[in-house]
């Protein structure tokens, strides 16, 4: 028998895992009415909070919640509609047998993920929908995470749901021939969420949700190595979070981080997931980035980092997903493996294309290589260029420290 005070905690746990399941089921049940689906899911949880402390948690909580949500939906449609056809439809809905068992409720979270991340929606709409419908964050919570007025976010969500219905965006997992386009788009949204949370201690929740959704995704698509690659990458980055900033909130570079503060369990898990994914021999950008992160995370001290292997991984990454940023990172790795003189020509080649001239890390990287090559005057110029472009105070402080010899 449960102690009553533990019930709200358990409901919170059931909410974390069950919200998206129930929303997805209800979207199907209401024939694509997202607003109604969410409202009914919310109502079901409100009922649970009210009833379960006295009655105890039912054996099949998901089935209980889904049944409650369905009753609410039928009620709502019946009251809102005077149309005979609609009422006949509702009567038929009422006759569908309730789910007897949690395990018999179809899991449609994958359908929900792909619909939330449909490329016909704007990226910001995709992000907002993912956080609301999948992560179960409230409009107010999402608004806070993005420093936007709640009203703005509410409107954004409202329009996104309208658009899904009006434009005819299907609620389904894309067929095989569309997956090569759609899966990377979905992974991109999850990684964007993670990165949004990674740079800011106030937004840790976004990282946690991104990791949780990536876990769900890998469970539902076990044969997609890139999904595993993304999960591994996020775990490996997240493992280093405690050491990324010092007591004053300043950024600490990878080589100067206190490695005893890294989360070893996360590193082990991330590295294992990455290795298993790569064994499928369908390496993609996320798997390669995870492998690079694993090289860093598993080095006992910075000096023992396997730079030649990192160079190899960046070379492969530049081949399958070429970009100036990847070239820059490859140059950094070469600088570490073979010395700054080997890397500077590569950095200068990027400078000639002009592609990264507004990217502060480009100038910071060039400055660092020049400094290590003993070309102090040129290094100072590059540090100043970086300083002008750096987006945050922490980054500016870091660059200023480098500019002033101690």
């Amino acid at each position: 028998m449960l102690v009553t005070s533990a019930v709200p905690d358990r409901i919170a746990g059931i909410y974390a895992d069950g919200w998206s399941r129930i929303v997805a089921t209800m979207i199907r049940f209401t024939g694509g009415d997202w607003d109604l689906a969410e409202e009914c899911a919310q109502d079901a949880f409100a009922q649970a909070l009210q009833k379960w402390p006295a009655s105890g948690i039912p054996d099949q909580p998901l089935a209980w919640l889904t049944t409650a949500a369905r009753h609410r939906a039928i009620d709502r449609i019946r009251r809102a509609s005077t149309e005979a056809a609609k009422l006949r439809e509702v009567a038929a809905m009422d006759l569908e047998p309730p789910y007897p068992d949690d395990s018999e409720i179809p899991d449609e979270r994958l359908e929900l993920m792909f619909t939330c991340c449909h490329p016909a929606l704007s990226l910001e709409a995709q992000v907002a929908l993912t956080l609301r419908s999948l992560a179960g964050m409230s409009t107010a919570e999402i608004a806070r995470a993005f420093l936007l007025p709640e009203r703005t976010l509410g409107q954004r969500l409202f329009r996104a749901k309208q658009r899904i219905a009006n434009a005819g965006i299907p609620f389904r997992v894309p067929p095989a021939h569309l997956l090569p386009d759609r899966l990377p788009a979905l992974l991109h949204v999850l990684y964007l969420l993670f990165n949004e949370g990674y740079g800011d201690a106030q937004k840790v929740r976004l990282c946690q949700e991104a990791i949780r959704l990536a876990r769900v995704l890998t469970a539902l698509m076990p044969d997609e190595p890139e999904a595993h690659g993304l999960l591994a990458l996020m775990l490996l980055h997240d493992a280093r979070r405690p050491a990324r900033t010092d007591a004053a909130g300043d950024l600490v570079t990878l080589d100067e981080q206190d490695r005893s503060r890294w989360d070893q369990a996360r590193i082990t898990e991330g590295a294992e997931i990455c290795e298993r994914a790569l064994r499928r021999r369908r390496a993609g950008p996320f798997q390669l980035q995870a492998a690079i992160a694993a090289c860093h995370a598993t080095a006992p001290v910075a000096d023992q980092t396997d730079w030649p292997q990192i160079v190899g991984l960046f070379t492969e990454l530049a081949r399958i997903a070429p970009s100036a940023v990847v070239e820059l990172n490859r140059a950094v790795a070469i600088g570490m493996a073979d010395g700054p003189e080997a890397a500077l020509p590569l950095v200068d080649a990027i400078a000639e294309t002009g592609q990264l001239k507004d990217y502060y890390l480009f100038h910071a990287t060039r400055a660092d290589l020049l400094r290590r090559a003993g070309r102090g005057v040129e290094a100072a110029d590059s540090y100043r260029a970086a300083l002008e472009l750096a987006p945050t105070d922490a980054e500016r402080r870091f660059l200023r420290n480098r500019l002033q010899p101690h």
Partner: protein
Amino acid sequence: MKYLMLVCTDPSYTPGQEEGAPDVVDWLEEMNGKGVRLMGHRTRPASDATTVRVRNHQVLLTDGPWAETKDQIAGFDVLDCADLDEAIEVAAKHPMAWAGMIELRPFWPEEY
């Protein structure tokens, strides 16, 4: 679902971008055969357009399109598709998606 497929030219067209594009005759054959394309036609350029307005019971005419629009309508098709994904696939196979651009406008539902 029904969609109006507006076939438009692209002001930022660069020669060669349509290389490898499918043939419009093949497109017509495939989409008519599948029953996805209900009707459609090429339209004459904006310079041959007439804009009609009725104000104070008077018919007012302007030669040319109603506004300066960057993209110019070159034709239209009416599609009947299962969902937006199918409509996107149909549009992406049209040669003007390569040489120009295509806008998909869902119809309001017919039943009220």
